[in-house]
Each structure stands twice: as C-alpha cells, then as structure tokens.
C-alpha cells in the first residue's frame, strides 16, 4: 500500500516535470546553447564572403579549434591572402604575414579593427568566455524566426569589462542553437547583427554552417561565413597552437 502511494507520487511528479522543464530561465537556455556550441576540438573548412557596396571579396580558409580557448586559421585563397595565418591562445592573438615572414601580435588598437576587411573585428574573433560569465540572461519573449520558434533572451553585462553591453539572442527552441544575435552599445544603439542558419547534423549535434554578420555602422556591408566542411572532436596535435606553427 505504501508503495502504491509512492508510485502515485512518482507518476504525478513525472507528469508535472515536463511542465516545469518547459518554463526555462534565461540562464538555463543559455547554458544549453553554450553546451551545444562547445566542442573539444574541431576542424573547419570555410569561405568568407565580404560585401562592401558593390564589391564582393571571397576568401577561403581552414581553421583548427580547441574548445573556446585556442584556434589556428590559415587562409588558402585568394592568392594575395594565401598563407596568412592567425593564432589565438586564450586572450591573445597573433597574425603571420608570409609576404614579410613576420609574426605580428594583434593588440591594443589593432583589436578594434576589422579582420581582413570583414564585418568581424579581431575582438569579435577573440571572444571566448562563456556568455554567462559576463552576462546576465533573461528570457523576454518568444518569437518565430523563419519558421523556427525561438526564445528571445536579453543578455545584460554583469561585469564592466565587456565589448558589447547588451546582446539579444534568438535561440531555436528545439535545437538550442542561436539563430540570430544582436549586439548593442551602452546607449542601446544596435551595432551588429549576426544571423545563423543552415543547421546541419554532425553526429549528435547540430551546428550552423552559415553565418552572416552585419556591421550596422559600415555603409552597405555584410560578411558571410560559409562552413563547407567540419569535423568535430578529431585529434589535433598540440604544436598547431604554437607560434612556431605560424611560421611553417
């Protein structure tokens, strides 16, 4: 008899939990997003297409990444950019220019500049900390974005040292992957918009293979990142994430 009431209680609790789990907090959603977007290691083959007014520039590159902390990128085309390499270790970034065989540390003012003329700045590329470490998340509403129902989450800086004071993320309710991100200045002015799409399945995870970043302060410009091939959790030798590998 006692067991029967226990069973009832269990049954009831099982029925209730889906309701509970449906009411996610901002924090929880972001945590799930972070989990989905994180990987141990990955190798990307991508193309970056920069649109400035009438001009279109296409660049292809290959990237190795270890978690959020280390990454190594080498540009393959066009010929003028071939051999240009970037190395990121934690909060530091270096660039290698084959034309002069020199490694340059990207620091100070340079960080604010656009990377290769795109809508991404070096700072953007350096972002590695988990969102929740710097931001407070709040679920504000739900919207449907291109046929996908999303959570709309507002992230407000909780520490002083952030690049973007506020961010707004549209998170796909089913896949827990961001579909759109808006970046704001302290005054609330919208500075950049990034949309992600073309989710593909890789093993158990979904990952966006198409990103568009728009720097709203630049005239008529947007940058597309198209991942043509990606491998997750492969073995990457440690030496790749060293300055020596820049010169090779």
């Amino acid at each position: 008899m006692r067991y029967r009431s226990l069973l009832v209680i269990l049954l009831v609790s099982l029925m209730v939990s889906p309701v509970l789990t449906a009411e996610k907090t901002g924090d929880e959603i972001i945590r799930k997003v972070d989990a989905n977007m994180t990987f141990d290691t990955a190798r990307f083959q991508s193309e970056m297409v920069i649109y400035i007014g009438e001009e279109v520039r296409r660049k292809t590159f290959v990237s190795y990444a270890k978690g959020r902390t280390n990454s190594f990128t080498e540009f393959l085309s066009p010929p003028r950019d071939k051999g240009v390499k970037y190395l990121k270790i934690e909060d530091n970034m270096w660039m290698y220019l084959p034309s002069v065989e020199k490694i340059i540390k990207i620091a100070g003012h340079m960080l604010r500049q656009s990377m290769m003329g795109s809508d991404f700045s070096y700072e953007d590329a350096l972002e590695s900390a988990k969102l929740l470490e710097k931001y407070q998340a709040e679920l504000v509403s739900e919207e449907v974005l291109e046929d996908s129902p999303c959570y709309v989450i507002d992230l407000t800086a909780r520490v002083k040292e952030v690049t973007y004071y506020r961010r707004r993320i549209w998170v796909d309710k089913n896949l827990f992957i961001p579909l759109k991100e808006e970046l704001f200045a302290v005054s609330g002015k919208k500075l950049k918009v990034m949309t992600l799409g073309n989710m593909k399945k890789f093993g158990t995870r979904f990952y966006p293979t198409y990103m568009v970043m728009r720097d709203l302060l630049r005239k008529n410009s947007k940058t597309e990142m198209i991942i043509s091939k990606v491998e997750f959790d492969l073995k990457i030798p440690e030496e790749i994430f060293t300055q020596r590998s820049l010169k090779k």
Partner: protein
Amino acid sequence: MFRIAFRNIFRNKRRSVLTGLSIAVAVMIAVYLWSLIVGIMDDLFDNMIRLTCGHVRILNTDYVKRERMMPLEANIPDYLAVEKIVAANPNVTLTVGRIKFGVLLEHQDENKPVIGVGIVPENESQISHLDQKIIQGRMIKSGQEEMNIGVILARELGLNLGDTLTVITQTAYGSISAMNLKIVGIFSFGVQSIDKITFYIPLDKAQPLLDLDNAVTEIFIYVKDKDNAPEVAKEIKASLDQVYPGKYTTKAWQDQEVLYFYMTIARNVYGFLYFLVLFLASFTILNTMFMAVLERTKEIGMMKALGMKNRQVMVVILLEAMLIGTIASFIGAVWGSGVAYYLATKGIDFTATFEKMGTVNFPLSYVYRAVFSWGIIFFGFCMGVLFSVVAAIPPALRAAKMEPTEALREI
C-alpha cells in the same frame, strides 16, 4: 657745375658722410629685409607646391571630401590613360602620379602615424628634387623593395641606412598587407612636416602593397605659368569630364584652402611690415637730405653772392644730392646684399626648435633663408637714389630763392 657739386661734397666731409651714412643704412636694411621676407614667402609657397600639391592636382571626386583619411578606395584607376589626356593640354609640362597612404608604425609601444608615398623616382625628383635632398645613401629605384625615409623620422625610430623596415598597412580593400623595405637613402627637405612623418617607396611596389593595380591616389601636374594654374585646372577638368564625367576633380595650388589661407595671411603681414619699414627708411633719407641742404644756407648764400643764378644753385644742390645718394645707395646696396647673401646661404636656423615640436601641418622650412636677388638689390639702390634727389628738392628750392644777404646772415 658738376665740378662745383663735387668739390662741395668733399669740402664738408663730415656732413657728406653723415648724410651718406643715413642713406646707406636705410638702403641696406631695405635690401636685406626684403630679401629675407621674399625668401621666406617664396620658400613657403615653393614647399607647398613642390611637396604637397603641385601646380594642379587631380583627385578622384570621392577622395576630395575625405582627404584627411586618405581613402585608398577613392583612387584614380588606369592612371596612365588619365595622364595621357592631361598631357595633351599644351600648358602642362609634367604629370606625376603618386599614391599617398597612411601607416601606423608601431614603435616602442606607441603607434606612430606616418605617411608613405609611392612615387616614380625620376619623375618625382623633377618636382621635389628628392634626388638632391638625399643626405645619406641614394634615391630609391623603381622595381626595388626599398625606401627613402625622412631624417627626423629615421632618428625617432632609431633607424639607419641599410636597416629594413616592415611596413604593415591596410589595402584599398581592407586586407592586411605588408612589405619589407630596405632603407637605401635618408633625405632632408628642411621641411619639418615632411622630414618627420614621410617615407617614399617606388610606385610599382606601392601598387601591389595596397591592391591598387594601375591606380594612383593623386596626380601632380606642373604647368608653364603657375599663376595661371586655376585656368589650366578648369581646362583639364573639362577634358577629363568628357571621358570620365564627374569622376575627377582638379585643384590648383591656389585652391588649397586652409594652407593657402594661412600663407596669404603671412604674406600680407610681412608685406605690410615691409611697407612700414620702407616708409621709415625713405623718411629717414628724406629727413637727412633735407637737413643737410638746410644747413648749407650760408654756403648757398656765398654761391649766390659769387654770381650763381638761382637755377644754377638748385641744380648744384640736386647734383650733390644725386651724387651722395648714388654713392651711399651703392654702398648700402652692397652691405645689404652682403647680409642677404649671408642670410641666403646660412639663413636663420630653427632646426632645434622645430624638432621638438609636434607635427606642424605647414610646409615650413626650419631654416629661414633670404633670396639673393639682383632685382631686389637694384630696387633698393634705385629707391635710395630717388629719395635722395626727391628729398633735396624742397630745401633746394627754398635755398635757391633766398637772398644772398639773408643766407649769409644765417647762423
């Protein structure tokens, strides 16, 4: 009468010397001061033309508004075709394409903004005389990855002949680009704004560095008559508009707005100054001459008593004035040209002061030089003689009319 005049002069040496001294000093000062002022002004305008804008400059219309940022995307593509159109104008003597680009040089934790200029060395030196301004090493050659760097810039960066500087910059399309450039020559134009922040590289190396194939950011044009530059600028714009409607803008050197404005002010100030000095100088001559003649009433009385007629007396006095005036003016002109020569070759040197300053946007030389101009010297001389004679007229008239007895009575 000449003889009388002559003897009169030597009879009272002291008076003649005093009179002459006044005139000589006034002429001397007139000569060297004007030489200095003209020298400084010419220098300023000259520097501006040779180093920053030519007689006429062609720019992409989109470049003009944002010139301070040196936007590489607003360039002159296919510049050789443009040069050809320009060269067809009979007033044009030389066309020189260049690329001006901004570079942030990293040096000792500081970012130093400097300006690189891609030039065709042989052509550019016809305008700026770069080849003559090399103080160490040699001028760059087309086709080589080398640079000429300003003497002050080199010193600030601790660079020497033979060192290689890696220049990292952004191309016209936002890519990062770099080049190792060997310093084969160090130059000094004597102009702070150039020597402190400029380096030159060959155009055919600047173009690939900046993704500007066949393009330049500006074209300097030299014309036959620089005062006519605005007209020629209009003509060239018209002929360019026929092929590339509205794409290009031409600017004559007189249209450099801010720079020209400040220089005009400088010129007006100095001109006025000189006018005042000249006024004082001529007044001094007048005054002295007047006094000199006045003092000789007794002498004049004697001449009259000896039978000379009024008119003759006047002529004698005027002759004397002319003689003293000529000799003194000549001496003054010689002294003046001496000082002018010294100022023209050595000049007044402000190098130390200028080096300590931040960058001045004026093409100011740091050595003030006078011009050595026969024209100015001659002018000073003539002025001295003229004023001497003119000054002598009123008192001469007065003296000539006097009664001999009256004159003799004067003490």
